[in-house]
């Protein structure tokens, strides 16, 4: 049944999966490949092996929370798929993923980078234009995601209305 409740459940699964993917991209790209910051790198700069190891531990916990979020998203997706409620068009589905992705960076950026100062995008610069850029890009991703999701949902609603 293509009802608003079913579409909402599918959208929520997409957003939660997008949050997980956003978290993993941050961890993999910034923490591990580029190594421009780590979880507590503003409190414990990675200038010694000791601090690098401590940051690695907290990066690991961050990844564990991200893994749990992704697993929850997959569970939600399987749940809606099992009862035949995967009612979002691809465009909307991609939109919900983008919403989650942007949302992760927006919330994490506001809380960890700006409010708590645990780390910053480019740690050697401290709070910089890169942090502002991340927030702006994340807000833009959420806005584009909402637009994509709604555009597809409009079609889904029309299909549902004509099917009845």
């Amino acid at each position: 049944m293509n009802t608003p409740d079913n579409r909402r459940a599918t959208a929520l699964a997409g957003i939660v999966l997008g949050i997980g993917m956003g978290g993993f991209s941050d961890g993999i790209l910034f923490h591990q490949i580029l190594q421009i910051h780590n979880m507590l790198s503003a409190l414990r700069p990675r200038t010694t092996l000791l601090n690098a190891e401590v940051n690695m531990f907290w990066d690991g916990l961050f990844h564990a929370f991200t893994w749990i979020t992704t697993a929850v998203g997959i569970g939600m997706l399987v749940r809606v798929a099992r009862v035949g409620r995967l009612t979002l068009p691809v465009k909307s589905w991609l939109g919900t993923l983008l919403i989650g992705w942007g949302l992760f960076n927006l919330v994490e950026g506001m809380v960890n980078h700006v409010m708590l100062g645990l780390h910053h995008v480019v740690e050697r610069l401290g709070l910089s234009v890169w942090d502002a850029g991340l927030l702006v890009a994340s807000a833009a991703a959420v806005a584009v995601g909402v637009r994509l999701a709604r555009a597809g949902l409009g079609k889904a609603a029309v299909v549902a209305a004509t099917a009845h």
Partner: protein
Amino acid sequence: MAVSASRTARVSSGIWAVGLLGTLASAELNACPVCHSDLGQQVRAAIFNGEFAWHLLVVALPFPLLALAALGLAQWVVRR
């Protein structure tokens, strides 16, 4: 030629073995939180101290906020 190649392979393997043993025996590599080395103990002490609960809270904090935001956005995107 065959003997020479075999000897080169043995020497090469020996160098790798010595290097591997040296690496594994290095105290610095045993710096993990559960390692029984001086540095391992320092890592443990730097993690599991009076600030552990606070650090755990702040590392976890974005996730419940994200859950709330996701619920709100899913409701808002799919309006009745």
